[in-house]
């Protein structure tokens, strides 16, 4: 019931639009009985704010979101397999090359094992090595054909001696301590018609694929923990590795290696 004590609250509720239908009727009846309060009611109604519709936000386009594009990645298995094969090829191709920066490079032919001691130098020195090595290899191969007996030659490279000279260590002393024949430069060694191999006997090894095993065996031996321990250690290590190679070769005979992707067999390698 609207009274003189609570009419102001009714006027506020009326201005806020919070009165029910019955309360609106009660307030209307009260106001008709008290017209002196009509001005006050108009003041409260005048406090109601109306929105200014001319004020607009002009950046709606920046707020809008566009549907994202869904890129279908079909045949992902094929792409994954291709990526895996490429990665494997890169690893196989790069791994032995990285290991050639070690101090020992071993080249294996049918009846001849040639070990070159190298030291990592700058890029120019490496280029010179790559240019010199094929020449040395062909000379060695000729020597192998001349000598039926298998032999082991240790040939320090020219830059190795240059380092030794820089340290003011006599070349002859170093070579004598290593029990290695002195070879000043690699071209000089190639010119020598009858180089004197070091008397380290290794058993005759029959390796069926010389070119394929050149890199592989070199990489295996390059990982050996042998640096400057001496020729006897190298000989022992080489023998051990050759024995392992023989065992691996025997083990993989008559075996098949199949590569599968899911249920699909990609290829089979027969040994």
């Amino acid at each position, binding site marked *: 019931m609207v009274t003189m004590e609570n009419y102001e609250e009714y006027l*506020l509720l009326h201005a806020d639009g919070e009165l029910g239908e019955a309360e609106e009727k009660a307030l209307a009846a009260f106001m008709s009985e008290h017209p002196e309060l009509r001005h006050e009611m108009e003041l409260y109604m*005048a406090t109601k704010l*109306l929105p200014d519709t*001319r004020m607009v936000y002009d950046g*709606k386009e920046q707020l*809008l979101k566009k549907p994202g594009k869904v890129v279908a990645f079909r045949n992902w298995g094929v792409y994954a397999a291709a990526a895996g094969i490429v990665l494997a090829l890169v690893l196989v191709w790069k791994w032995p090359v990285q290991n050639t920066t070690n101090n020992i490079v071993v080249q294996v032919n049918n009846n001849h094992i040639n070990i070159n001691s190298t030291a990592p130098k700058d890029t120019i020195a490496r280029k010179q090595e790559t240019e010199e090595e094929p020449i040395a290899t062909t000379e060695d191969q000729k020597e192998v054909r001349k000598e039926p007996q298998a032999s082991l030659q240790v040939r320090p490279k020219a830059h190795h001696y240059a380092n030794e000279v820089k340290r003011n260590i006599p070349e002859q002393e170093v070579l004598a301590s290593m029990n290695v024949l002195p070879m000043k430069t690699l071209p000089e060694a190639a010119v020598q018609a009858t180089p004197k191999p070091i008397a380290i006997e290794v058993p005759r090894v029959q390796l069926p694929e010389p070119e394929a095993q050149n890199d592989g065996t070199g990489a295996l031996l390059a990982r050996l923990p042998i640096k400057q321990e001496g020729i006897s250690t190298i000989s022992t290590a080489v023998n051990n590795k050759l024995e392992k190679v023989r065992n691996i070769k025997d083990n993989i005979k008559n075996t098949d290696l199949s590569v599968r992707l899911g249920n699909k067999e990609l290829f089979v390698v027969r040994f």
Partner: protein
Amino acid sequence: MELNDYNECVHQWADPLFRFACKCTGHEEDARDIVQSSFEVLWQKRKDVVPEKGKAFLFQVAYRQSVDNYRKKRRVTYNEVPEQAESIKPGNPDLKRVLERALAQLDEQARALVLLKDHEGYRYEEIARITGLSDSQVKVYLHRARKTLKEYLVKVEHII
């Protein structure tokens, strides 16, 4: 709320939200920032907001940013928004300007309550949900604000 619902909210509520923020803060640039961040929050929370509650969510975020943050900053200045609309009643062309000045006399919270009530037409309980106040608090604060506005109008009797 999906993408289309969100974009519909932008079309429908960006302008009211901007007016609300503009009146609350008294600064157009601040109001633009509030609108932008409010819609950004809505987009991030769209999975938790049903389309029917999009407007209330937006005003809730805008209220918190415009009232709570600005209250902490203790902003006392209120830049009166330039008058653009025509007068509310014929014969009282200055009423709107007087009301703008009267609105500037209120604190940020009371101003926000009046705007939510008059501009958006929310009921007390809806305003309570948006502002985090109780229903009775909303009613008391709104009535107090309305009395302040009325008293300001009485002082400028020549307008009424």
